[in-house]
């Protein structure tokens, strides 16, 4: 087995209004692994994801990325290693052009000049968006924005990508293109999604989250074939979709 990229141990988090969002959340992800994070609305998936790079800070428990424990001192290093792709690309793409947006992360890490240029081009190339380098983000289509959003964190050369609802608002063709792009990246990925067929196609392993903790962890095709488990946690397969007969 590869070494662990992310080790999350017994995280507890409460929102200021007292709602408990995470309640003993533990998860380990290994290098190169793609793991789907499934669960109903309000299960704590996004809250958990924002703990991985210290945007949310847990009351108790610990987060270790690449052997480095998350703390005030290691925040910058952890944020380099955890590439977070937000749900709405309009939140992620805030610079005037695609080039500057992809350069934003590495530039904050002190990368400059030719190396910065090379990283920007490599990141855009790996998502097939190099031709869009000079465009303004708001002139791209939804699918293009999503792929550029992935490039903005790839340029930081992260150890793990965290994707929050990557297929939301995408048409089936854009969704297919995104799947191909993500499958082609060697980096470990945590994919938060309601899109169960997408999870099955992209991620060999899945965890089900409910009530702020992991309630099931196993091969995606096994979890999705367990009707009782899905029903207990408000997960539903699309009409007519049978994970047991999908060619894998």
């Amino acid at each position, binding site marked *: 087995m590869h070494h662990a990229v992310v080790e999350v141990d017994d995280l507890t988090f409460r929102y200021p209004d007292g709602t408990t969002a995470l309640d003993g959340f533990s998860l380990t992800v290994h290098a190169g692994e793609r793991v789907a994070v499934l669960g109903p609305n309000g299960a704590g998936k996004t809250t958990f994801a*924002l703990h991985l790079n210290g945007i949310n800070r847990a009351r108790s428990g610990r987060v270790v990325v690449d052997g480095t424990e998350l703390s005030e001192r290691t925040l910058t290093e952890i944020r*380099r290693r955890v590439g*977070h792709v937000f749900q709405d690309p*309009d*939140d992620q793409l805030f610079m005037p052009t695609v080039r500057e947006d992809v350069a934003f992360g590495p*530039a*904050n890490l002190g990368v400059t000049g030719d190396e910065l240029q090379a990283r920007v081009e490599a990141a855009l190339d790996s998502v097939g968006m190099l031709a869009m380098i000079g*465009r303004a983000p*708001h002139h791209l289509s939804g699918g293009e924005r999503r792929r550029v959003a992935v490039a*903005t964190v790839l340029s930081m050369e992260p150890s793990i990508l965290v994707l929050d609802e990557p297929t939301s608002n995408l048409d089936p063709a854009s969704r297919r293109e995104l799947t191909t792009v993500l499958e082609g990246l060697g980096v470990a990925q945590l994919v938060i999604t309601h899109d169960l067929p997408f999870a099955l196609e992209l991620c060999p392993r899945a965890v089900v989250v409910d009530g702020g903790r992991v309630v099931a962890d196993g091969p995606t095709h096994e979890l999705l074939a367990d009707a009782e488990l899905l029903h207990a946690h408000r997960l539903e397969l699309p009409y007519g979709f049978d994970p047991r007969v999908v060619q894998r």
Partner: protein
Amino acid sequence: MGAGHSHPLHVHGHSAVHRLAPEAKVVAVFAFVFGVALTPREAFWAFALDAVALAVVAAVAKVPARFVLTRATVVAPFLGLALLLPFVADGPRTEVLGVAVAVEGLWGAWAIAARALLGVTASILLAATTEIPDVLKGFERLRVPPVLTQIAAFMLRYLEVVAGELGRMRTAMTARGYDPRWLWQAKPIAAGAGALFIRSYERGERVHAAMLARGWNGTMPELRGAPATTADWTRATLLPLVSLTAALAAALIART
């Protein structure tokens, strides 16, 4: 490489004027307009010289005359006001095409029209050869507080997003039969404005989180072109040099 369809005032190109560092261009336009404003209104030749200087810049930048002229129409309302001056001003009168007009008013109208046209043409040329993010970068290098330039940059980026949200909200209202005609029907508009404000505020928080996630630490990285070189500054001086020298010469001639 295309900079996209950046903004309607921009003419894509790679001329010497386009390549000039933005801060040099910004200073050049301000200094040029300063010179134009100082030029005595009697010195027709000085204004003509300024116009020729702008025409040369436009030619070097390959900005079509038509493009400049159609955009210069924004000063039309001011020109309209200026044209009233000869009729309303006091003092000695003269006849133009059989109509009695005030001499002082004629001079006033001429001065406003000439200065406004030269000033607006200079700004149109700046906008035509410089993308807005570059103009902002120029201001930043001229020691305008980064907080102000960043607010302007984010406003530009999110203007279309917010306008899109507003458009969808209006469509949703119309779809449910809202067709305001009277003032007392304005309440949903106010509620909509409030909702838009909250949404924009929340988006601001999400963008901030996205910036933190990519290692932002309070200052924006330097990503746009190199700062102005001595050669840039020298070239940029040429334009204001014309208007300032002309203003000075005209003032000296008027005194003798």
